């Protein structure tokens, strides 16, 4: 039960992109197409998972004084590895359009934040769940943003060269594929998410009140 709570905490209640606003750069920069967003999420999953596992398993060895440098070194090494792996195995145009956002995971506050506030204090198994929860939360947020941007901006959804036209391209709103569209879509998604969470919270509170009155 506690594991589920840890997972949901990352996915919903403390969603890194939509609630605590960390790691916003890839949420704007890699959401032009769903394909980019999915590969970016994979990248973050890989780094966050391994960094949480490593940091959690060495948490008793690392002296408290130098823990932040140690975390930064571990994360930088992992990101270098991911960068080389993706360079070798990803479709070239996807790698090209993700560009430096892969290298910049190294300064992404989600990874260091999780290392510092969760993995350094908890068991390996819990840290794995935490990593999965947070990367799922990140993935959910950026894939939703990418979905709306691609759908409204081009009228089509595409994957690896195949595309499915949903809205006739004359009716697509180009703005949403541009830079300002990224900011606006993310803003709207954040507002929508906040509204949903508020509504769920209010419903829960009302239910509890009802139960109390009975």
């Amino acid at each position: 039960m506690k594991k589920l709570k840890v997972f949901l905490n990352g996915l919903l209640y403390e969603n890194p992109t939509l609630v605590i606003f960390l790691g916003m750069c890839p949420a704007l920069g890699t959401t032009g197409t769903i394909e980019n967003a999915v590969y970016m999420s994979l990248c973050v999953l890989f780094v966050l998972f391994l960094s949480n596992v490593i940091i959690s398993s060495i948490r008793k060895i690392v002296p408290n004084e130098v823990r932040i440098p140690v975390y930064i070194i571990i994360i930088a090494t992992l990101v270098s590895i991911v960068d080389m792996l993706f360079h070798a195995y990803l479709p070239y145009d996807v790698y090209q359009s993700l560009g430096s956002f892969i290298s910049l995971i190294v300064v992404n506050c989600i990874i260091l934040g999780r290392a510092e506030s969760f993995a350094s204090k908890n068991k390996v198994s819990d840290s794995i769940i935490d990593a999965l929860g947070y990367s799922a939360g990140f993935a959910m947020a950026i894939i939703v943003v990418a979905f709306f941007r691609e759908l409204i901006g081009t009228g089509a959804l595409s994957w690896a060269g195949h595309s499915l036209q949903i809205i006739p391209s004359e009716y697509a709103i180009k703005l949403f594929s541009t830079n300002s569209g990224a900011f606006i879509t993310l803003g709207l998604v954040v507002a929508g998410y906040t509204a949903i969470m508020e509504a769920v919270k209010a419903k829960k509170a009302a239910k509890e009140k009802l139960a109390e009155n009975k």
Partner: protein
Amino acid sequence: MLLTSDIGQVFISIGVVAFCVLLFVGTYLLNKKTKKPEGCETLNCEGCSIANCSHHPNKNKEKGEKEND
């Protein structure tokens, strides 16, 4: 000649990275050991939710209470 061979490259890279690591750890400790000047002890920044920043207001609170969160 050793420097341009493959194995030489590996040793050089290890050396370079080790040097950088030592540099970082050294400067980190140097900075941490230096006390903040007068009037700056309670310098807090409420800008963002980067909890591992040394000016984040939760820094001191967090140590005791947030064990399992």
